[in-house]
């Protein structure tokens, strides 16, 4: 065993990660921009917390095609959760609630998925088979997600090498979780069924930073098609991490690429430290075969405790259980992640499997913080027969949950003798990971009996291929050559407006700098002006750029026109204020003289500025302000 010890995040070097054999791959889930959901005709992308009805369901594991039950499925069944769905009549039909079979797959979504597959140089499948991937956590009311492989293989360039793509699949999005307390988990169903594309990379990333960088490239490629959703929750990453001797662990649902480096660092550290813990156990001669634990009920012994969580539980007639982990003394304080210890691994399992969700849900005899009194610890230890070499874990709750918890505590402690158990983990806000569920295997895949296989003819692929967008890095090169402002380059390259940019520059012959400013900077400026809007329709931009080229609107008139379009929903190319040519400005200046004459100025020095203001009010958005300024200065000189 390598005796490398993890350093703080900022001090870790690439060599350090190499020493521990850090490996990571990504599974990126990207919502596709379609009008409707994947397997029904409900609208996609309409989020709403309001609901019209609640539905209660329970999930039972079913047998796979190969005649096996899946481990995760059994774990979820153990938790005996009531699953509640909040449903809104505008976004959910009987399909999502599994009261009606699916419609045929959404062709628009499938085309987008195939397009992205081709961008990844992935081999599209000739016949798509819809599978059911079992999810017994309730996030999908049917208990399975309909999903299908769209393509196999592929690659993307990263630094001086290629990152392999394993596969792409198209699938329906799951519900959003509202709460999960005790035996009741609540979901809202608005997102359910929206088309999602999952891209799986090979574990080719060797440091936490590489993982985030590759994630960024993948994200940019899909965005550059202009056919994916953007914004909060539209893309979510699952990150697979392992170290030498460890296990492939999946960190689920990382909402932002920025959080990946710290999360993968902590996960690598956790695995490394669990392997070191296994060594320590070996030193203590505790192996899987020799591991021993003992569970007891100790409710009576703690009846008078002043430790609040247990005292409160006892008041509600709940029970207290204890588990002796033989020879484990001190090991619950074994560091696993940043400021996180092995006791957390146990507490997590108790929380998820036994549904004891109020924290703290365990205390242990290695703990230095205040729990039950020393006398109570001694009384418990003596009664259950714990020695100085053992650790005692105490758990409380209703009787059934405590029984499940005691079993789970022993199971997790025993797993320490094996190393890193296979599981999926949550991304926590502090950059550490927490147990979510046992890692599901291929046993959870079933063929969908509702939908027949779907052939993808070569002609369909050829058609999509002929319309593929160029890679965003090629756009970046071209933009640089055109002198597009630096801050516009990347946003434009991955924007759905990139195609319009090309058209405006190549077809309309508009100055590229101006086009980039209009498409990227002006919407930002509008946002700064506190105008509320989600996005500006592409045809508004196109109309304005065309009008500009035809001389129907001045450069200065574009922003006011956009403002009207988003603020008042008014966009009428025929009613744009006509631009004023430089030579005609003099007339406006002369005509304004009477207006300035009748004004009483407090300070004559302001004459020129006020004059400019009066003229500007008449010509704003129709001519460059500096031209106006020069004309006023010149005219004032003339008349003086």
């Amino acid at each position, binding site marked *: 065993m390598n005796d490398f010890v993890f350093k703080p995040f900022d001090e870790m070097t690439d060599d350090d990660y190499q020493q521990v054999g850090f490996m990571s791959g990504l599974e990126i889930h990207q919502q596709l921009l379609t009008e409707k959901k994947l397997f029904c005709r409900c609208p996609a992308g309409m989020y709403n917390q309001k609901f019209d009805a609640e539905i209660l369901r329970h999930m039972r594991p079913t047998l796979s095609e190969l005649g096996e039950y899946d481990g995760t499925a059994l774990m979820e069944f153990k938790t005996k959760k009531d699953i509640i769905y909040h449903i809104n009549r505008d976004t959910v039909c009987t399909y999502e609630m599994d009261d009606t079979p699916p419609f045929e797959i959404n062709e628009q979504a499938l085309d987008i998925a195939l397009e992205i597959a081709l961008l990844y140089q992935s081999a599209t*499948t*000739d016949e798509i088979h819809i599978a059911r991937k079992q999810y017994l956590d309730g996030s999908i009311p049917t208990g399975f997600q309909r999903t299908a492989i769209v393509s196999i293989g592929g690659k993307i360039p990263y630094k001086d090498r290629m990152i392999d793509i394993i596969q792409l699949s198209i699938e329906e999005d799951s519900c959003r979780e509202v709460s999960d307390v005790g035996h009741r988990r609540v979901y809202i169903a608005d997102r359910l069924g929206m088309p999602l594309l999952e891209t799986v990379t090979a574990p080719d990333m060797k440091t936490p930073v590489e993982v985030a960088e590759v994630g960024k490239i993948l994200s940019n490629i899909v965005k550059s098609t202009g056919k994916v959703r953007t914004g909060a929750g539209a893309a979510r990453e699952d990150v697979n991490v392992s170290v030498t001797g460890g296990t492939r662990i999946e960190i689920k649902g990382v909402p932002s690429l920025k959080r990946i480096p710290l999360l993968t660092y902590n996960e690598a550290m956790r695995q490394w430290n669990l392997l070191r813990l296994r060594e320590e156990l070996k030193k203590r001669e505790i192996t899987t075969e020799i591991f021993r634990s003992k569970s007891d009920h100790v409710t009576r012994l703690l009846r008078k405790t002043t430790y609040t969580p247990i005292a409160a539980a006892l008041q509600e007639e709940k029970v207290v259980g204890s588990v002796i982990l033989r020879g484990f003394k001190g090991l619950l304080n074994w560091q696993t992640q940043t400021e996180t210890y092995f006791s957390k691994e146990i507490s997590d399992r108790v929380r998820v499997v036994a549904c004891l969700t109020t924290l703290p849900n365990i205390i242990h005899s290695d703990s230095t913080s205040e729990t039950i009194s020393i006398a109570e610890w001694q009384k418990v230890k003596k009664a259950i027969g714990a020695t100085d070499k053992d650790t005692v874990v105490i758990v409380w709750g209703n009787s059934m949950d405590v029984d499940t918890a005691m079993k789970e505590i022993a199971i997790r402690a025993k797993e320490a003798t094996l190393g890193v158990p296979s599981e999926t983990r949550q991304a926590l806000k502090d950059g550490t990971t927490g147990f979510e569920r046992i890692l599901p295997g291929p046993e959870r895949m079933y*063929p969908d009996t509702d939908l027949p296989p779907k052939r993808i003819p070569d002609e369909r692929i050829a058609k999509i291929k002929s319309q593929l967008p160029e890679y965003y890095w090629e756009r970046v090169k071209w933009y640089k050559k055109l002198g597009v402002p630096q801050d516009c380059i990347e946003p434009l390259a991955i924007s759905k407006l990139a195609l319009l940019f090309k058209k405006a520059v190549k077809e309309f012959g508009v100055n590229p700098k101006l086009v980039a400013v209009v498409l990227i900077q002006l919407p930002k400026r509008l946002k700064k002006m506190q105008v509320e809007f989600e996005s500006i329709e592409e045809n508004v931009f196109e109309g304005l750029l065309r009008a500009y080229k035809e001389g129907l609107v001045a450069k200065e008139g574009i922003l006011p026109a956009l403002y009207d379009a988003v603020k008042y929903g008014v966009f009428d190319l025929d009613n744009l204020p006509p631009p004023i040519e430089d030579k005609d400005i003099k007339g406006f200046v002369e005509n304004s003289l009477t207006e300035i004459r009748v004004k009483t100025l407090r300070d004559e020095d302001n004459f020129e500025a006020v004059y400019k203001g009066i003229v500007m009010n008449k010509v704003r958005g129709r001519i460059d302000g500096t031209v106006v300024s020069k004309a006023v200065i010149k005219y004032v000189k003339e008349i003086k």
Partner: protein
Amino acid sequence: MADDYKGYKDEALAVLMKYEAMVWCDVVVSTAQTNFIGIILPRSETSDHLHIVLKLRSGYNVGILADKVTDIKIEGRKEAIYKIPEKEFPYDPVKPNVKLLGTGGTIASRLDYRTGAVIPAFTPGELYGSVPELADICNLDTEKLYGVFSENMGPEQWKGTALAIGKAIESGVAGIVVGHGTDTMHHTAAILSFMVQNSPVPIVMVGSQRSSDRPSSDAALNLMYSVKTAAESDIAEVLVCMFGPTSDEYGLLHRGTRVRKMHSSYRSTFRTIGDIPVAMVSRKEITPLRQDYKRRRSDKNVIINTAFEEKVGIVYYYPNMKPDVIDSLIDNVTEGLLLQVPD
């Protein structure tokens, strides 16, 4: 031999035979674009003859156009075993005995990989493997009478079911559950209400709307509700026991002569028409909604009367209906014609 390439025909079969790649072979299939690694699955009978189906390591299936295959390397073979975990149904002398009669339909089931069809689990051992909660309620004995889709139920099956119910009552069971496909369950329920008269025990018909190969199926709960009703309730009538609401909350017990299926796939599709159901049933209790039902008795004095006149028709009236329709029916069904007239 035929099974070695199960379901494959023409182009796809030729390619598989060329490489001697039989179903369940662990293979690497190469095309000009990429390699697919997985197990060759049997081909569904209703699918085309152009593609080879592979189960990839990830568990996903894909179809590969046989024409594009450039090579198949065989690395092993592992035949799938389709088995519902069968455990002996525990016997408890204190618990009531319930007889489950099967006519078809899927209460508990497993998947047929090839056709996508659902194969029912039926023996007590298979049922216990799938729905172990049943053993908390009763001792269960099963008898498969028929294996037909509910639309194929006819006089022969109705009479046979009625006679089997008579025999089960004779043997002294606490109640009877009849598993049935849902599409015509209400017909059978009505017929049995007349064929089985003066029953001393509950006769509960049950099915499922969403097959039990889905984790959110209503099958297991329906089965638990119906077995509980048969074992414990004092309602000695022919009942249909299916979901009350779409939620997993309770089942409703409908009178056999009053019930109808109202939606093809919805869970709470069975409704008592023009009246209220007899009772509600949950995992915990049976709550009667009315009192005018026949009570359970300890005797075995059931009357089985399987008289059935086949020459009766039902016809739905609609405006501008031509008299010829009635005439031709009268010519063909001599004994009687029931006219259904809209309100």
